[in-house]
């Protein structure tokens, strides 16, 4: 089924980037402001769904040649590895650390290992949501 809605497609081209930017912002600012990996992942997934609605799933697959099942597994791997790296340092599994660093131009920035874990969550959520959605939408 392929339908063309010029207004939706034109708007989508712009909106998708806004949504994706917002998603990234939520992912990285989640430590201090509303957001985080879970919501960020869901927002990213909703952007891709919007693309699928405006165009069709085959076009989206050509534009975004991402293997979503692997992406999900990759996310879990990142989350587990962050947990294990704490063990290498002699702390309990998943113990998170943070410190502050001074970067040029930006000023003081907090570096937290929790963000790595959150990125794992982010990828898993995108991978899972898109696996389900594309499995259902591509089913003949």
């Amino acid at each position, binding site marked *: 089924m392929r339908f063309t809605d010029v207004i939706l497609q034109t708007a989508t081209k712009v909106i998708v980037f806004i949504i994706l930017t917002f998603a990234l912002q939520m992912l990285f600012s989640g430590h*201090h402001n509303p957001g985080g990996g879970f919501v960020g992942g*869901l927002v990213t997934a909703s952007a891709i769904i919007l693309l699928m609605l405006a165009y069709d799933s085959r076009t989206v697959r050509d534009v975004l040649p991402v293997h979503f099942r692997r992406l999900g597994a990759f996310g879990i791997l990142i989350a587990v590895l962050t947990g294990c790296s704490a063990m290498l340092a002699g702390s309990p599994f998943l113990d998170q650390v943070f410190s502050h660093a001074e970067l040029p131009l930006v000023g003081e920035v907090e570096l937290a290992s*929790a963000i790595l*874990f959150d990125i794992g969550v982010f990828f898993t959520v995108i*991978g899972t949501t898109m696996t389900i959605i594309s*499995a259902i939408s591509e089913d003949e």
Partner: protein
Amino acid sequence: MSPIILAVFFPFAFALIVPILFKVLRRIHTGWFVLAVPILLFGYFIRFYPIDGPEDIVVQSAAWIPRLDIEFAIVLDSLSLLFALLITGMGCLVVLYSIFYLSKEREALHNFYVYLLLFMGSMLGAVLSDHMLALYTFWELTSISSFLLIAYWYQRRNSRYGALKSLLITMTGGFAMLLGMLMLRAATGTYSIRETIALADTLGEHPLFLPAMALILLGAFAKSAQFPFHIWLPDAMEAPTPISAYLHSATMVKAGIYLVARLTPIFGGHPEWSWSIVIVGLLTLLWGSFTAIRQVDLKAMLAFSTVSQLGLIMSLLGIGSMALTPDMAHGQAVLLSGAVAAALFHLVNHSIFKGCLFMVIGILDHELGTRDIRRLGGLAAVMPVSFTLAVIGAFSMAGLPPFGGFLSKEMFFTGMLDAYRTLEGWTMLLPAVAWLASVLTFVYCMILVFRVFTGPKPEELPDKPPHEAPIGMLISPSVLAAAVVLLFFAPNILSGTILEPSMRAILPQTAEAADGFHVHIAPWHGFTAEVGMTAGVVLIGAYLYRRRRWLERVRDFVPWRWTLNRLFDWTLAGMERISLKFTRFYMTGFTGHYFAYIFGFLILLAGGALIALQALRFDFSDLSPILPYEYALGGSVVASAVYMLFARSRIASIIALSAIGFLVALFFIIFRAPDLALTQFVVETISTALFLLCFVFWPKLKEEDGRLPFRVTRLLISVGVGAVMTLIGLAAIAPRPFESIARFFENSYELAGARNIVNAILVDFRGFDTMLEIVVLFMAGLGVYSLIRFGREGRKDG
């Protein structure tokens, strides 16, 4: 971590890189890499040899689950060392043999060696553990690896059947053993075997003592293929021959014997223990050797022979354990303890000669494509080396000089005769049964050698022309055959160094009274009753072998047809039938029914918990006033819910449902929960899209089933769920009966460097939950994917 624990885990760790080696270095047989593991471990354990006195015993431990008092406690005494050396030594030879047995081009070697290493590590763990639960864990791991190895050629129906059978029987036994161990723990308050042994004197009066003994024996008998649990072992012969030689004759099936020997200091003085082992052992010995004669498949013959030899070792341990009887005269106790020396010596002998025989039969199978004795014959001329090896192995098993088996068979007769002389009652039966079983053993050993290697060539020739095996396959059995001969001429290299200290571990009380044991094994003691019995075995056995047509008639007369196997199959099929019926009863395939179960349990559990915990306390005094727009929002939610109930089309109810979701998100905003509101908005958007996608697949909304009881049930469930949820919500704002934990999270910035408490909870405080949640989420996603993708294909087949 202490070094012995690392040694136990070394095979597990190596198993992780085996698939990589197999993938990357395809040109080199993976077995060459794996061979390093048993060689290194053998080299490691041999350094402890001999463990003579109590000062040499190595005790190490590492915490595992300290809160449950579970640890990896390793005790390396002489008995454990004997088994560790058997496991690693046989492991070297078997891996070496498998390199030539399994083709590197055709076989899934990575699977094979991973399972093999899994077995090696778990078997080592089982014989070295002092903690009962660690022992149990490793014990079950050996069952699992055995299952995987039997099913190695899983394309074959028989392999799968044999694997499942062995798993079910040994695991049932293992579970009984676990129960027995928990009972022991309840009686003593410790999981440690050594501490339990120290408490053994007072343990006998405890009411749980006899049940624990019975359950542990059940586990040992199932593992060591004792009658009537022996039926799994012949079917386990579907495994590749190196595995049959390793697991199913030399090591794993001896785990039950190890357990009996290890726990003899606890249970030994009690006649229930000794006699059940003696009776079951002798029955197994007789039945196994009788059944072995009628086999035409060489591996099945060896399987039954293993069953009978395990029975032999068991019965000797039973006799030996009587030395611990409290009022036994000192001389008699020492006499009976000789049976333990015989058991241990025969255990070593059996592993060696049976390993050799299995490898020879593997050669026949590999080179000729058959192991059916009706299709084999006259092979001595073309396979002289294999013939020699088979003669050495089989004559040792038959108890002929000059092979190691002769010595242990004599010691077996001595043990049985001593029991007859020492004990009262019908003990004349013991040497009689032993003698009869030895005659039968002699007969099948002769069949094994002479039917296959001498006589006329069969008319129906095997698939391939007969020829000698490659040199690589002959190395391992030759080493074993050399050991068989060596053990005859120098048996005392074992007696002082490993048999005596191991006997001290099995019979500590007797050892204390007798000031140690003195084992001296000699081939000739003058004209004793044992020599007479051996001569009788040879004469009658040879006669029966000549007249085996007559023997065949006897065995045809016996109502065979595997009655025990029938019972097993029938029980299994019956259990499957009953569970299928029960599952069909509630798994109806109607989503409505499943929702009824889920919500029914929700009402019962959540509502029940509210009442049981006396949480139904309401307090509306401290509430803020409800503002007009909150009324408006609440009213909209109610209106949407009511509309959804009465909507005529499905798309209308989906939209009403989404409306409820978005309205709830607005509530979150009003109550200042931005994280929740954000998540709720996105989730609602995506799930609406998902609903609309699924919309295509849904059937049309049907008129509901109009019957009254059906509608009343649904009404009750929905009202119930609503009521319980409302009560939970109302009870949550009442003063709490316990201290709030919210305070801990409030200083999230100091603890986790995060100003967003919700995020700090998700990624830091409750990070483990989040990790498992994303795993579950991903699993669910994969589940949906495979249901949609492959469920449809499956439907095409069905």
